[in-house]
């Protein structure tokens, strides 16, 4: 209790330290949550009436809910009244050169192979105007709008495309879905909106664009992706570079809608600050991600590489409503030191001949705890539904824990459900074998772990697969021997 209060206190007081409230009074509001706060946020963002109603409904519902405690994670109670729920995007202190950046951060960038320009951007160094991302961004925007693709911040979408927001927001994750989703629905800061019109294949990974665009989305992020009939989009969220944020609690909501014959591929690389070795600090990442395969032959695929955060609580799920629709979940979750992760997926089969695949690779090192939790539900009438699940856990050292909680509910006799699970340890024998071929222990672990995760890494967009591989090695540095 005391620990979290202190952290939260530090967080809230630190805002004063940097002096935003003294300058412009209305840029941040005092800690605490009430209807007035919700109204303030909505007004501040100049939202239409329907959005305010949505928020208020969610808030009122949230008040009736209890924080869930079923996840296999432990943390001091969160005092929701000590969090400040609105602050305008911060201006980062501009540095003149990389020399002024924390050398440890630079070493990590180096190891991850992040380009110099991007290193500068990530650490807040002013970038040469020619290299500035603004021009790149404009090029992307033009190309996308030619195809009728809408890709903008959530706030912008609320103002410019209210009909789409009204139609789809909350259609997959209703405001009262769960405690954190309700909180997000009441106070969400910003996020992204993406709409791919009928028959359009988005010609580029929306990753690059997003990375340029990702700054300052805040702690209650909201993402909505809609792929209309026959559309395709590959979307990447996150970044391999370590993300530090003074907001401890992150409760995002991501919704995906795939219409008939549409396909959405959503990839995440998450490397938020995990806290120090003793587990102090670090981000609580309580996320609700869900997609619905609304139409026949639609497909939603989640791929995630989770290495950061002190606590991860996250289950990217798919509702397979359309006949012949496909849901996929490919996950790598790494925990080291004192990190805790409870992550997995839910596949709900409603349509006929629906198919889902789950491949989960958990890696636990240090004193961490890594849990897979997954539900496969085959509803009555979802005839000939198929699921294949594979959950592997890899342990490094003998002080960490790996847990698997698979839930299977089958209500249709024609369903075929397969579940495989393995637990293995990185053997000293494997490391010695690599050593004997001239490969040092650190590189050996990288090699072995990447081998173990290959099925999932192969699902990532090429550019990110390479960075993610390096990230895995960096995350596990010093965890053996």
């Amino acid at each position, binding site marked *: 209790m005391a620990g979290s209060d202190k952290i939260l206190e530090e967080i809230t007081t630190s805002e004063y330290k940097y002096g935003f409230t003294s300058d412009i009074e209305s840029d941040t509001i005092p800690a605490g949550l009430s209807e007035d706060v919700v109204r303030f946020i909505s007004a501040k963002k100049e939202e239409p009436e329907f959005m305010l109603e949505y928020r208020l409904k969610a808030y009122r519902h949230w008040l009736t809910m209890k924080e869930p405690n079923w996840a296999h994670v432990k943390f001091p109670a969160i005092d929701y009244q000590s969090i400040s729920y609105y602050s305008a995007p911060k201006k980062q202190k501009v540095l003149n050169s990389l020399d002024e950046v924390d050398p440890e951060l630079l070493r990590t960038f180096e190891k991850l192979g992040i380009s110099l320009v991007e290193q500068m951007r990530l650490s807040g160094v002013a970038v040469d105007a020619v290299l500035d991302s603004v021009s790149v961004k404009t090029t992307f925007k033009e190309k996308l709008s030619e195809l009728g693709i809408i890709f903008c911040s959530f706030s912008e979408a609320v103002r410019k495309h209210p009909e789409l927001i009204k139609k789809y927001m909350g259609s997959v994750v209703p405001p009262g879905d769960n405690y954190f989703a309700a909180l997000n629905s009441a106070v969400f800061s910003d996020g992204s909106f993406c709409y791919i019109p009928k028959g359009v294949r988005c010609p580029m990974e929306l990753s690059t664009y997003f990375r340029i665009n990702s700054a300052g989305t805040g702690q209650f992020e909201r993402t909505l992706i809609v792929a209309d009939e026959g559309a395709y989009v590959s979307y990447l969220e996150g970044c391999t570079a370590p993300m530090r944020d003074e907001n401890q609690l992150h409760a995002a909501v991501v919704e995906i809608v795939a219409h008939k014959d549409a396909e959405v591929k959503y990839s995440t690389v998450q490397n938020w600050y995990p806290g120090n070795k003793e587990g102090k600090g670090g981000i609580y990442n309580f996320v609700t991600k869900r997609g619905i395969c609304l139409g026949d032959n639609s497909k939603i695929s989640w791929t995630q590489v989770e290495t950061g955060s002190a606590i991860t609580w996250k289950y990217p799920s798919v509702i397979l409503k359309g006949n012949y629709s496909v849901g996929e979940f490919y996950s790598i979750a790494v925990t080291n030191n004192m990190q805790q992760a409870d992550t997995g997926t839910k596949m709900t089969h409603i349509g006929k001949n629906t198919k889902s695949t789950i491949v989960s690779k958990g890696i636990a090192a240090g004193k961490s705890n890594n849990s897979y939790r997954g539900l496969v539900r085959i509803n009555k009438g979802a005839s000939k539904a198929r699921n294949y699940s594979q959950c592997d856990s890899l342990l490094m050292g003998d002080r960490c824990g790996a847990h698997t909680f698979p839930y299977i509910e089958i209500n249709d006799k024609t369903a075929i459900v397969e579940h495989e699970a393995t637990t293995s340890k990185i053997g000293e024998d494997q490391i010695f074998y690599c050593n004997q*071929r001239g490969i040092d222990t650190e590189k050996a672990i990288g090699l072995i772990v990447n081998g173990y995760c290959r099925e999932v890494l192969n699902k990532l967009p090429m550019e990110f697969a390479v960075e993610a591989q390096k990230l895995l090695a960096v995350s596990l540095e010093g965890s053996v021997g």
Partner: protein
Amino acid sequence: MLEIKNLQVSVEGKEILKGLNLTVNKGEVHAIMGPNGAGKSTLASVIAGKQDYEVTGGSILFNGKDILELSPDERAKEGVFLAFQYPIEIPGVSTINFLKTAVNEIRQHKGMGNMEAKEFLAMLKEKQKLVQIDTNLTGRSVNEGFSGGEKKRNEIFQMAMLNPQLAVLDETDSGLDIDALRIVAEGVNKLRNKNNAFLVITHYQRLLEYIIPDFVHVLYNGQIVKSGTKELALELESKGYDWIKKEFSEIPA
């Protein structure tokens, strides 16, 4: 090249090597024979630097360098190779990627840059041919699902790729049928030259029909009790190890 002096090694408090002496020069092939439990595999593991082996006395010099001070990967980079008795499987890591990493690590140690992809592939092809290894095997994950014989052949293939100065073959013949044995031995013979050396550890004389050693040593009770030429191997084959045991059983444990 390799100079082992009065080497004493314990495993979990039990003394296995009790003052072993051995000198191997460039261009030589030495065979170490001996009954089960004599300490043959311990010798191989200690040279390679495996954990859990406690060196309580003596020294191992490799090209004049005390390698007991070096980590296993540093020894490998210096040119020590161990063909494992039980090669390890590394799922998901392709043999090609594994070898590319190893080759480049060793090159970097020598102050050379990474090998160009084209050059690497050419070498891969050449060595595959040399040790007659199926290209399907090298495309798969390291040793994963390989048969015993395939694993041993893969060890020899890796040896060919890494081109070590000193190769220690730890019972590479065990579990091989006669054809596989011949292929493995042919591989070794092709790689033999005046600048490298081999330490062939074996229980049986059979392998030495194909790899003709310059010297044969008998390891018994933690020491080399007899040394000779290839005829010694034949003598052991016909007489068995019992006479060695009788002759040297007085050695204090």
